[in-house]
């Protein structure tokens, strides 16, 4: 498999009246062809902010403060935000699906018109060809009777169907990379299963690589090949899905896994929550951001700055002095 996308040391700042928030603080990740990568973490950990930055969609008061996004031999962050090169990539070669399908679609245009617009922005097609392509896309994502549904407005679609339209729009120009930001959070479980299965099948059929941003560890376990766990703007652990779930090394990853109820758990078992609150990203101390909530902290954690991400072998990296695997 060849490398498709490489993000290096990405930094995003938000200027607030109370001070500067570094929402993304040196995030690096890679994505290979036909790979499904998951970015996992709780709200405010920077997982969505990092993906918006990859697309140069960071909005004021946010600023991309540094880093590189390498794609097809170019650093995307060097392109002008609304220049022709960036616009060819955004929505064309790299597409994004957002969390709220209902609010991402324009309510006063038909679904077909919105699909045609996406198609014609990036491909040199005539109006009638674009119309055909819109029907074809709706069929691809499993819409019943697509010929009539293209003329419908978003409010005539259910949440799950709207999300399918968003996926169709994302796929309209056969992107190399699809970034899905919490693609199923707003959907019911049976619909979630349908949509995720659809996305996985499309990855396999079309050879697209997929980045899934989610807080749902179940979704990650079922669909994702490799995981990046984020906390307070940084990747704290990364590796293959099986490795991370079987041998979590970072106390935060372990805490997350222990705090979610499992459908197959023995009845009466107790959850072990992560105590305390997520950190305030303004005025972060130099030490590990998880330190105040960490049950495994040692003196070194209090004295030294946040450790670097270090490999523990097998493509498994962890940012921790304790390294739970060795302690066990």
């Amino acid at each position, binding site marked *: 498999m060849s490398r498709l996308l490489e993000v290096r040391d990405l930094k995003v700042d938000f200027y607030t009246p109370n001070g500067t928030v570094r929402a993304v603080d040196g995030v690096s990740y890679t994505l290979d062809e036909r790979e499904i990568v998951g970015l996992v973490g*709780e*709200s405010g950990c920077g997982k969505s902010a990092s993906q918006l930055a990859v697309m140069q969609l960071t909005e004021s008061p946010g600023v991309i403060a540094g880093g590189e996004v390498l794609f097809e031999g170019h650093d995307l962050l060097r392109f002008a935000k609304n220049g022709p090169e960036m616009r060819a990539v955004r929505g064309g070669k790299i597409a994004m699906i957002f969390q709220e399908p209902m609010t991402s679609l324009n309510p006063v245009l038909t679904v077909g018109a919105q699909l045609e617009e996406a198609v014609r922005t990036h491909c040199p097609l005539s109006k009638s060809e674009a119309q055909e392509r819109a029907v074809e896309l709706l069929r691809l994502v499993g819409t019943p009777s697509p010929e009539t549904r293209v003329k419908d407005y978003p409010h005539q679609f*259910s*949440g*799950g*169907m709207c999300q399918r339209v968003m996926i169709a729009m994302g796929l309209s120009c056969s992107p190399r990379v699809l970034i899905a930001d919490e693609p199923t959070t707003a959907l*019911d*479980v*049976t*619909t*979630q*299963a*349908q949509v995720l*299965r659809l996305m996985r099948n499309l990855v396999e059929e079309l050879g697209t690589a997929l980045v899934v941003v989610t*807080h*749902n*560890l*179940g*979704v*990650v*376990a*079922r*669909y994702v090949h490799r995981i990046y766990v984020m906390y307070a703007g940084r990747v704290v652990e990364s590796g293959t*899905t*099986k490795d991370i*779930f*079987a041998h979590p090394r970072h106390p935060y990853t372990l*805490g*997350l*896994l222990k*705090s*979610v*109820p*499992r*459908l*197959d*758990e023995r*009845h009466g*078992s*107790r*959850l*072990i*929550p*992560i*105590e305390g*609150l*997520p950190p305030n990203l303004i005025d972060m101390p130099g030490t590990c951001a998880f330190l105040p909530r960490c049950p495994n902290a040692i003196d070194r954690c209090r004295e030294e700055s946040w450790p670097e991400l270090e490999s523990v072998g097998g493509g498994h990296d962890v940012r921790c002095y304790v390294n739970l695997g060795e302690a066990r």
Partner: protein
Amino acid sequence: MNESCDAPACALPEEDVLAMTDIHVEFPVFRGIAKRKVGTVKAVDGVTLRVKRGETLGLVGESGCGKTTLGRAALRLYEPTSGSVCFEGTDITHLKDRALRPIRRHMALIFQDPSGSLDPRKSAGHIVGEPLRIHKLTSSKADYERRVEELFSLVGLDPCMMDRVPHEFSGGQRQRIGIARALACDPSLIICDEPVSALDVSMQAQIMNLLKDLQAGLGNLAYVFVAHDLSVVRHVSDRVAVMYLGRIVELTSSADLYHDPRHPYTQALLAAVPIPDPYVEQDRDRIYLEGEIPSPLDPPTGCTFHPRCPRAIPACSEEAPELRDIGGGHEVSCLRV
């Protein structure tokens, strides 16, 4: 307080705190400029349900299945179109506001959105103490303040935060304020409407543990736990009722729900929930439901699940199955079981 002076009594086993019998809740639908009534949505369509003292009953289902409506009908926040609601031995179905108020003291509600359900301009202490003031439950100012402090400690909030307003708290803490308010009048039943859905994973676990600890510590506190997340519902509940289009399709213990689900919808719902363990996931059976939930305006005939059901037979489209006990308190409404 003499609470049931003029309220009709109803026969209810002593161990039941709530009994709902054949509850229907219908909402009229109006269209057009003239607001002509064009139909009715049967949000709850004939549900019979008992909640025992001190137990947690989970109500689970997808959006529009009527789980929230049913929970609210139990408190008479929505008026049932027909059917009866008995709470602690009193038939409250037709009670007037004044007679209902002293009884409502013993029931409480926790909402999904902790920020939307707290007045942003009132202090946390004021919010938590409001039920005490409404029901005049404390004898003096000192008594009142002591009780509010007690409630704060009970839900794991520092009483010195009483003077802060809701936006100064995190999401998890706000939900704790909502829980403290619900506990103010020593309720015997709390309807928890998606209490952890808006929270982060680590906060969800804290709140679920808190709810369990409160139940163990206070004794005799029953929860009706309404949520769409099957893993969460199964974790906190003793028994679980699975709803589909306004009806209960299966009702059983939490253990049986996972190990012995009988209704095809329950089976599909369970299969759709991913388990956070890739090794378990790779060996699981997959059942994918086709299509979507039909409109409750025009529900299918017979069993409402039959158009999506992998095991449907012609009879399913004609005959609506009753919820019946198949042994050990496991109730299923399906012709094929």
